[in-house]
């Protein structure tokens, strides 16, 4: 019996990665949920906005690296982040101007906006690949680990290692700060409240003297910031690949929805629900049980509820179950 090793193994292969992944999803889901909450449509271009923002950050990072500037133990890309956010904000504002505004003025139904965002997604998709190509790009530098598996083993003398990456910690911290800020912004500030008012009843917002174009612009800028931050942190942790970013869209939407669309807190919780369900339900308990149980009882099988082939199926099944009992998500989202 070796509870400590069992615990460390569980932390290392389930809790730490799922927490980090959850935070990554949560940051993406915040952007989706914000657009949904204020502009009232599901923005399919979000994954590609993340890709575009990350591309800007990568190019800037390369520039900084070439110039010999670094950010100490932290990745240089974090220095490039503000610049990338500015670029992305300009791009999405431009997109809004050229594309979305027209439909907004005509008050088209949300389904049309969804398809329009699909069109924007195609275009951004192409533009990103034009700029940076389709290859994987690794742009992480600085200290990769806070705690390495080997370092942990050496320090504690345990058989199991525990690894924590710098970016994982940064992501979790940023996600928590982002949601707190957003919550404060939407519920306490004048601009935030005017955004909620606009999303609730556009005509009446007009009658209260709220400038809709300003609301929309602020929404897009925040979204751009969230998308770029999410994209860069994800890319630092894993790597950057446009196609993967496009594929991220699905778990991101799942997170936003399971938490309740339009609700920032929901987005965060949703991200963790999806991440943990992907990792835990298909987890093979063999290792942990081997540590806990006496040798005679040690399992020879994997002790796995389902094979990892079904991890997406499982996370979606959980999502559907949640929705069956809470039809608008965990945190009472909106529905148009």
């Amino acid at each position, binding site marked *: 019996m070796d509870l400590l090793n069992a615990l460390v*193994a569980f932390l290392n292969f389930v809790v730490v990665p799922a927490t980090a*992944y959850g935070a990554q999803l949560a940051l993406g889901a915040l952007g989706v949920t914000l657009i949904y909450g204020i502009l009232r449509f599901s923005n399919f271009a979000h994954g590609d906005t993340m890709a575009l923002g990350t591309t800007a950050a990568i190019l800037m990072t390369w520039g900084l690296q070439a110039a010999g500037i670094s950010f100490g133990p932290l990745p240089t890309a974090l220095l490039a982040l503000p610049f990338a956010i500015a670029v992305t904000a300009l791009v999405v504002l431009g997109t809004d101007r050229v594309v979305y505004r027209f439909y907004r003025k005509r008050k088209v139904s949300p389904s049309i906006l969804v398809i329009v965002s699909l069109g924007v997604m195609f275009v951004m998709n192409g533009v990103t690949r034009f700029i940076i190509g389709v290859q994987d790009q690794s742009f992480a530098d600085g200290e990769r680990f806070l705690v390495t598996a080997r370092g942990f083993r050496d320090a504690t003398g345990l058989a199991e290692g525990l690894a924590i990456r710098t970016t994982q910690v940064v992501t979790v911290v940023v996600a928590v700060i982002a949601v707190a800020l957003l919550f404060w912004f939407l519920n306490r500030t004048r601009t935030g409240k005017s955004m909620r008012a606009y999303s609730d009843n556009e005509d009446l917002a007009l009658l209260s003297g709220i400038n809709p174009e300003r609301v929309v612009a602020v929404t897009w800028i925040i979204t751009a910031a969230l998308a770029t931050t999410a994209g860069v942190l994800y890319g630092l942790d894993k790597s950057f*690949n446009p196609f993967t970013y496009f594929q991220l869209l699905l778990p991101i939407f799942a997170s936003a929805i399971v938490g309740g669309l339009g609700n920032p807190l929901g987005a965060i919780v949703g991200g963790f629900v999806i991440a943990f369900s992907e990792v835990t339900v*298909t987890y093979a308990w063999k290792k942990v049980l081997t540590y806990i149980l006496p040798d005679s009882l040690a399992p020879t099988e994997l002790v796995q509820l389902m094979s990892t082939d079904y991890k997406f199926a499982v996370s979606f099944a959980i999502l559907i179950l949640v929705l069956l009992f809470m039809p608008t998500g965990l945190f009472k989202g909106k529905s148009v």
Partner: protein
Amino acid sequence: EEVKIGIILGFTGPLESITPGMAAGAELAMKEVTDSGKFMDGSSVVPVRADSTCVDAAAATAAAERLVTSDGIKAIMGSDCSGVTGAILQNVARPNGIAMISPSATSPGLSTAEDDGLFFRTAPSDARQGVVMTDILMDKDIKTVAVTYTNNDYGKGLADSFQAAFEAAGGTVTISAAHEDNKADYSAEVGALAAAGGDVLVVAGYTDKGGKGIIQASLDSGAFDTFVLPDGMVGQQLVDDIGDGLTGSFGQYPGTDSEGAEIFQGMATAAGFEGTGAFAPESYDAAALIMLAMAAAGSTDSKDWAPKVMDLANAPGEPILPGELGKALDLIAQGVEIDYIGATAVELIGPGESAGNYREIEIKDGVIETVRFR
């Protein structure tokens, strides 16, 4: 005169990151032949690219249909993914009598598909690689391994054939878990693989797809530190991206001890692309074989040249390496028999697929070193 050859690969979609290298490889061969001025009375070879999307059989069929019936291509270099390759073969190539050579469709199922003698591939069927990989592991006295494979016909086929061979040789596969490419996170897979345990992890995937993600996550969490890399996973890019962690990992990919592969890499570098990319050399060879067969048959009609492919690829004859296509054309014109070796030591067997000679490699200090050939 212009002879058009179609290059149908998944320029967009899941394999989009390896296709540019493949297309460049094929086009390199075509340029070489055109520049030699010795092809079919000085004809030039013009590549026509089309997107197979890798996943959308209908779109791939339509693209192939367009190349064949509208652009008038005489041969197809492609396609890449086994699924769309089968669809193009059945719905376009056979009906129109156009022959195709795929550089990368490795599914064993294609061996038995009806093809009217029109289908070849320069990549070996996965069955053979499983045996080679087993031999390597047994020589290193490694008896328990974990396996993860990319969830498509390539990965599954390779994992299955490896598992069969390895277990027959007395080894134990603790787990054989699929992973989907281009997904956001591989923690669950790595968790399961780590729990199952094993001396090494066999990763039957692609260099910059899920395979890379799995390796990265395994190293980060300390789950495994030695990896076995089959053909889809061998690439300098992976070694550069992962860095030190890969030192000591080993694997194999199609190749013989001919200098072909190195020559090809030199040519690729000169042409400005990465010659070690997955299936880029196979693509060069596929294109080269098509053109040599046309020259040998003295005709661009598939009916005429397709039967020549096997002869040209196999011994006996004067060996032909990359960069020697001009020489080969001369020899053909003189009626001398040739044996095309190319970048991957092509040897075609049975229903027109590569026999599968493998190069065993090991990664040392950031470079892929060849250990021996099998």
